[in-house]
């Protein structure tokens, strides 16, 4: 993990002091609401339905156990005893008091955490694959590049007042998109060509209103020029992005309006000027960053499929099932990555309590070198677990309720907070997620259905990523009443793809029956081993449409 240097620490402390003063001036009436707004947003602070919401940055999803304990402590001391893992891998608190936020930030700073640029019209938290560094399929560990980008983006003076929010994701796995780079403002794909590291750079993807996937702008940007290239794109966006209409302000609208060709030309012109300048990366710096992400002290004698694991798999059906859903291959022999599902029925997807933070921190210390990762599916990963300890870990997770063996299945729902917390919502999300979880509670059936991504957003801002769910549910408002629109065929698995609208929206109590009918159709029509999404792609939307509205008028 990246370990702070003195200057990183100093920067954070100065930030806390700055925000403390800004908050004081706001409370004293020296700053207007309007003036305080971008300042607090650049510190992750929204004013929400019931209280401010504070979004804490988790750079590329990496956390250590000390940080986790602090997150628990904050939940206990200044919130209502819980927090929430977001689809951008951050941690959100729903109930802090504005007056306490400077103290919360000071507490975070002690463990090298912050809320810098987690919202507002600036460069947001950089995200990547939750299996970064342990995925055997990746060309190299993307995290050093994420940290390089994080530092460049942090308080970058030219890009603090962009037309709109800006999100960058990095992926190192070929032909797959675990980091969802296709739906980010900039997506960075790490590629190796003739033994050299470089990047294919996409721009103009995004969800929300007018969802779209990004266009390739830079085919192969050599590693030295990563930051110059990003800076060139940002400068083009800062100068030409639409500022008249906030709904047309994202870079995707600019790329679409200009066309990828013209956008590339403008970027190249800026890049020509920056290239080989002082912003050029040095081998020393990249090596230094790589040094921060060196392997933990793996036991080199550990082997795959040890006897302890084989025996446990044979003796416990429940463990066996969990192993086959929630445990992932690891590039280090004898190790595995484990996903803790925060998707127990009756609990808002992604929620975690103060005592659970502590308990998970202990497990990370005991089983995974004290490190963990958050995922955009709102789960938590212990990245480096010895295979012969999986059974013991599973037993501990069972007690905590984090061993629900539903990862990637229909009840592993991604959902934004929706109308229960968010003042922008058109409809509730959490009760819909719960109703679906209750209906599909039979684990045998769920496993038989196989992987199905179901994502719910309470409004078109798409915080719940509904566009990229195989099944997406979007809260809409019709004459002051809550309705739900369904999309099908979105993908956030292999490659990012935007789903298609099924048709007119449904009332809340129709959602479960409609999902059940869609699933029934799939079961009737699937070919052996065919996934829901593949059946959908083979049949097209029409039969699903017909079935969904079959008893509807």
């Amino acid at each position, binding site marked *: 993990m990246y370990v702070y240097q003195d200057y990183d620490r*100093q920067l954070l402390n100065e930030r806390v002091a700055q925000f403390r003063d800004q908050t004081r001036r706001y409370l004293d009436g020296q700053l207007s609401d309007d003036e305080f707004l971008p300042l607090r947003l650049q510190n992750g602070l929204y004013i929400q339905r019931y209280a401010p919401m504070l979004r804490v940055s988790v750079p590329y999803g990496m956390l250590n156990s000390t940080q986790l304990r602090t997150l628990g402590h904050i939940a206990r001391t200044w919130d209502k005893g819980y927090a929430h893992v977001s689809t951008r891998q951050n941690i959100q608190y729903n109930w802090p008091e504005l007056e306490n936020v400077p103290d919360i930030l000071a507490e975070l700073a002690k463990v090298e955490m912050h809320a810098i640029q987690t919202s507002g019209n600036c460069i947001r938290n950089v995200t990547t694959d939750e299996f970064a560094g342990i995925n055997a399929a990746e060309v190299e560990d993307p995290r050093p590049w994420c940290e390089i980008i994080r530092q460049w983006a942090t308080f970058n003076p030219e890009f603090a007042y962009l037309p709109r929010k800006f999100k960058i994701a990095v992926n190192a796995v070929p032909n797959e998109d675990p980091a969802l780079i296709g739906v980010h403002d900039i997506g960075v794909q790490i590629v190796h060509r003739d033994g050299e590291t470089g990047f294919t750079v996409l721009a103009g993807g995004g969800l929300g209103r007018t969802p779209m996937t990004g266009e390739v702008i830079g085919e192969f940007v050599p590693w030295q020029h990563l930051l110059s290239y990003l800076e060139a794109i940002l400068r083009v966006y800062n100068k030409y992005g639409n500022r008249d209409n906030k709904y047309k302000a994202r870079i995707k609208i600019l790329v679409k309006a200009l066309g990828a060709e013209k956008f590339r030309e403008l970027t190249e012109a800026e890049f020509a000027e920056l290239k080989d*300048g002082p*912003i050029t990366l040095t081998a020393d710096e990249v090596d230094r960053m790589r040094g921060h992400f060196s392997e933990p002290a793996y036991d080199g004698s550990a082997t795959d499929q040890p006897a302890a694991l084989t025996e446990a798999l044979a003796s416990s059906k429940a463990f066996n099932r969990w192993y086959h859903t929630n445990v992932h291959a690891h590039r280090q022999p004898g190790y595995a990555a484990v996903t803790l599902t925060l998707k127990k029925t009756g609990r808002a997807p992604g929620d975690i309590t103060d005592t659970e933070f502590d308990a998970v921190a202990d497990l990370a210390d005991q089983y995974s070198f004290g490190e963990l990762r958050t995922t955009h599916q709102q789960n938590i990963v212990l990245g480096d677990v010895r295979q012969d300890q999986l059974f013991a870990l599973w037993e501990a997770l069972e007690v905590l309720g984090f061993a629900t063996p539903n990862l990637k299945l229909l009840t592993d729902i991604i959902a934004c907070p929706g109308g229960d917390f968010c003042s922008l919502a058109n409809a509730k999300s959490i009760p819909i997620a719960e109703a679906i979880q209750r209906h599909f509670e039979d684990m045998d059936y769920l496993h038989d259905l196989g992987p199905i991504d179901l994502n719910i957003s309470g409004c078109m801002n798409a915080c719940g990523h509904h566009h990229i769910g195989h099944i997406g549910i979007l809260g809409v408002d019709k004459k002051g009443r809550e309705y739900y629109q369904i999309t099908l065929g979105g993908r956030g698995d292999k490659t990012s793809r935007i789903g298609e609208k099924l048709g007119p929206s449904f009332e809340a109590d129709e959602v479960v029956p409609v999902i059940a009918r869609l699933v029934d159709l799939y079961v009737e029509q699937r070919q052996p081993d065919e996934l829901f999404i593949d059946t959908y792609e083979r049949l097209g939307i029409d039969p699903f449409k017909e079935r969904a509205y079959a008893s509807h008028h």
Partner: protein
Amino acid sequence: MPAIIKDGTIVDDSWQRLTAEQIEQQGLPAEGDLIVPLPVWQAQRDAIAARAGRTAVCLEPGEEPSEIAADLDRLPLVAIDFPAFKDGRGYSYARELRTRYQYTGEVRAVGDVLRDQLFYMHRVGFNAFQIRADRDIEDALNGLKDFSVTYQGDVNDPRPIYRRR
């Protein structure tokens, strides 16, 4: 005389900024230091330059430095207007003036200019700030000192932190 922040201190300001409408109604002042809008400058460049007194051009968002690139050696000051502090185009313009055009004159932020933006503005090349009239200029001065460390290079020191260590 009104005060501005320039090169880190509060100084009296001799410049007068006029809008296109004011110039149309009152004509060009015969003397004195004058900041004019870009369209006025483009339309009456020579008449303006012939006056007694210095001339500067003010860029609005959407008016890029390239429009005055050829004139920069006769402009002792370029003002960049922030009609709303949230419009960040001026940051890129200032940076371009300094790095692309190597402009060494005064680059002044005018309009909705507030304490909490000053640190960023200074880093992209502004060396003068006309603080919004209803704000305490002494207080705003503190904004220049918000941070003592930075990750990126900037106009004042182009080296990013990995070249400074």
